[in-house]
């Protein structure tokens, strides 16, 4: 029940295209859903996060879509750029993010010219 399932495992997108990564959770106590970006040899860095009182949050080229009834959320990267090539992790937490993070398995995104 604590798991967060993430797909796909890897994704190749052409420059300028839309990258979409999906996550699903089971624990209804989760109330905070961040996405982390990780470059090789670096720690995860918070990209964008959403709480379940909204269905969508947009920051620049990054959008989280959230479906509370389906217990699913996704990251959309518009106009994908080579600099977006990284591993992306979805995560979930409770107490509005003040509890430990449960991470998805990660998606290795490669943007090709």
């Amino acid at each position, binding site marked *: 029940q604590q798991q967060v399932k993430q797909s796909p495992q890897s994704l190749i997108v052409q420059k300028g295209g839309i990258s979409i990564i999906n996550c699903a959770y089971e624990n209804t106590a989760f109330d*905070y859903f*961040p996405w*982390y970006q990780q470059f090789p*040899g*670096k*720690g*995860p*860095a*918070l990209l964008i*996060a959403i709480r379940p009182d909204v269905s969508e949050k947009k920051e620049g080229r990054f959008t989280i879509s959230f479906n509370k009834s389906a217990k699913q959320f996704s990251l959309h990267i518009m106009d994908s750029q080579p600099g977006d090539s990284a591993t992306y*992790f979805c995560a979930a*937490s409770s107490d*509005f*993010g*003040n*509890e*430990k*993070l*449960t*991470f*998805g*398995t*990660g998606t290795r995104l490669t943007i090709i010219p």
Partner: protein
Amino acid sequence: EPEVTQTPSHQVTQMGQEVILRCVPISNHLYFYWYRQILGQKVEFLVSFYNNEISEKSEIFDDQFSVERPDGSNFTLKIRSTKLEDSAMYFCASLRIAEAFFGQGTRLTVV
């Protein structure tokens, strides 16, 4: 911008030896965490620390592991007798109002 600092960046140790991984969290943060990431796998929670005591630990965090905040600023993870399967990246994180900031990690290699 303040950041979480971890040392060393890479530690190689023989099986059975003790290692101490060090972290300096962001100064006004109150919650501290250790996570680990085995190569190519997901980031896994180890332990959380608040108000100078462990608030939660995972099943991975067995008696071989301990955490301390010895001087009010540093936050350490000790592995008493390392095993080959302890080889991983270890990340420290500190939390401010729901946003967790991660350090660069320590790559631990047990040989």
